């Protein structure tokens, strides 16, 4: 086999970034994994082997159980609303050809903010003693937003109540407000990519607008939905900044997530091994979404 000059060049260009990624991404993932199996729960490093002790501790920990519950509900609601709203808005934009660009920019703009900014802004907006909430009090509604400790549709699981924490809804609102623009942009791109001939053909066959969307356009948008789910899933499973800025852990940890717990455990409590274990579990949670997608797209490619 003879390597052409182009191939050689490509290899040479790839090598540096390949090496950097191997060291600084996979190397450090490995290092984190190794720390998570150690006894390093003090200020100074102690790399003696502890086995799965740190993981066993976490799964018996009330706070971590609450974190997992919160992550599940946050992820489901967040992704659900981002897809529904993004798709809905994209279809509306698709119908209004004229102001399309203007609306697209308006909806895309929140994306330019960081989650920390979003968190602080929404914390003010939902503050029980300001603005809109005082207005609600005129009608006798005492909004509690992110301080509510109630769990909707709850049932007991281990030592914690499983169900949707009401306070989480406030965080979901803020997150959806920020990320809907992204899914909107994805869907608009997808809709533009669908050739007009297909719609025309469907119309000639006597399909209504609604039928065109249901039978022709939506199925063609499936790959877009897949991408949105993957991108949103990894954002929501490792979310930290929004919650840290907006609510903190919340009363009874109703808005706590693994990211916040990892930060406090590691950098406040100096439990490095426990923190590393949380980080590894977060990585595995993301992998649950990403790996099937990778396998699927590989299969599609070959």
């Amino acid at each position: 086999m003879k390597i052409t000059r182009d191939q050689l060049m490509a290899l040479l260009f790839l090598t540096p970034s390949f090496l950097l990624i191997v060291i600084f991404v996979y190397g450090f993932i490995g290092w984190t994994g190794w720390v998570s199996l150690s006894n390093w729960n003090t200020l100074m490093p102690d790399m003696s082997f502890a086995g799965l002790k740190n993981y066993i501790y976490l799964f018996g920990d009330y706070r971590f159980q609450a974190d997992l519950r919160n992550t599940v509900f946050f992820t489901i609601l967040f992704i659900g609303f981002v897809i529904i709203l993004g798709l809905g808005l994209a279809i509306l934009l698709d119908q209004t050809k004229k102001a399309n660009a203007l609306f697209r920019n308006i909806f895309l703009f929140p994306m330019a903010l960081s989650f920390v900014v979003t968190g602080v802004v929404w914390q003010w907006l939902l503050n029980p003693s300001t603005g809109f909430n005082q207005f609600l009090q005129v009608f006798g509604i005492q909004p509690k937003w992110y301080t509510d400790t109630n769990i909707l549709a709850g049932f007991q699981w281990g030592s914690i109540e499983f169900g949707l924490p009401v306070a989480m809804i406030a965080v979901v609102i803020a997150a959806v407000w920020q990320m809907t623009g992204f899914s909107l942009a994805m869907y608009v791109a997808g809709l533009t990519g669908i050739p007009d001939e297909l719609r025309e053909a469907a119309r000639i066959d006597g399909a209504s607008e609604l039928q065109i969307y249901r039978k022709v356009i939506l199925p063609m948008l499936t790959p877009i939905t897949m991408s949105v789910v993957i991108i949103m899933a990894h954002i929501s499973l490792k979310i930290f900044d929004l919650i840290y800025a907006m609510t903190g852990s919340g009363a009874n940890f109703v808005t706590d997530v693994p990211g916040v717990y990892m930060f406090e455990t590691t950098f406040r409590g100096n439990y490095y091994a426990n923190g590393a274990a949380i980080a590894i579990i977060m990585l595995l949670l993301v992998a649950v979404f990403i790996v099937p997608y990778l396998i699927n797209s590989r299969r599609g490619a070959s």
Partner: protein
Amino acid sequence: MLKKSLAFLIMFIFMIALVACGGDDETTDDTGSTDDQTEDTTDDAAEEEEAESSGDGGSVEIFSWWTGAGEEDGLLALIDLFEEKHPDIEVENAAVAGGAGTNAKAVLATRMQGNDPPSTFQVHGGAELNESWVAADKMEPLNDFYEEYDLMDKFPEELIDMVSKDGNIYSVPVNIHRGNVMFYNMEVFEEHGIEVPTTLEEFVDVLAQLDEAGVTPLAMGDKEAWTATQIFENLLLATLGPDDYRALWEGEVGFDDDRVREAAEYFETIIGYVNEDHASRNWQDASQLVGEGEAAMTNMGDWAKGYFSNDLNLETNVDFGYFAFPGTTEDFMVITDTFGLPKGVEDPDTVKEFLNVLGSVEGQDAFNPLKGSIPARVDADASKYDEYGTDTMEDFQNSNLAPSLAHGSAASEGYLTKANQEVNIFVTQQNVDQFIEKLQQIAGDL
């Protein structure tokens, strides 16, 4: 020809990568810097130049998290004083902003683990110093320093105990804050004819009385759990008394003690009287309720005094008053910032010069009035402090000192993290049995 240029290109990419990695060290200190700090850095640069031009007497790097309004002023005043006395020594202010010291502590841990300690660093006296840095064998004993500068009788004995381990002294305290203070709205107290409570029974009566009158009796802002932990530690001090309270953290009194349960039961009662939206407020928001007369009292360290007078423009002993947490009238919950000498520092003598200025009457009086704390020395100049300061200085000298849990003096940071976690759960669930059981479980991390 092509190969050569390609090789150059790759070299170039590698160099960029190396520069990017190497740059990390320098930028770490600036992480999370605010506008305040930018100003501060320019000041620094000027100061450094000045020092450099006047000779080479070594340098001292001062690591702290004092970047907020009053505290930064205090630190800069201290540095100015030092530079006046030692113009040949270069001072580097390595303050790390944000998160009540969380960011700074993370940076410090990284540097200590990498054997790159700052010349001297801010650390709370008590467990935060003794159980972490001293226990890890990272600090130099300062006994000789105390002897040399005749400091042994300039600080209260209990305070020196807090910065000592196994007979060795490891740091020099610069300031004192008090954690067991209740601030109250004087108008509200007057309106409802309330006397200042001195015991826990009276306190609970007052809470009930205010509640009936339709005022929120106690303002709490436990968005960060330490404010609630602070109430609990004051209750422990009240029920156990100062000696057994200290013994609790040394493992000599167990958490199964009846008086710990009594404290937890009081805690449960008191939480019944706090503002409903406590979980969405921080301590400033809670203090604001008191300032505006919507709530009667709040328990906070004496930095709240600065918030009342500077931020809310209220007058001491006219608009707001203060008294010791009921049941702890004779006691003083100490929060003290101290500076020590890490092992492996290049020029320990220069650092000692700085510690000497920091420990002197002059140094403490330059720093504390600006920071809003009181001096750790007992012989400081009382005329430099306001009414609250002089009151507190008097209390400090006449009270039993107790280390604060919520501020890292009584137990390790690790224990505190877990204790805050249990307090957060308790505040919502109010299950005394479970709380006691959990406290016993985590006692192993003390």
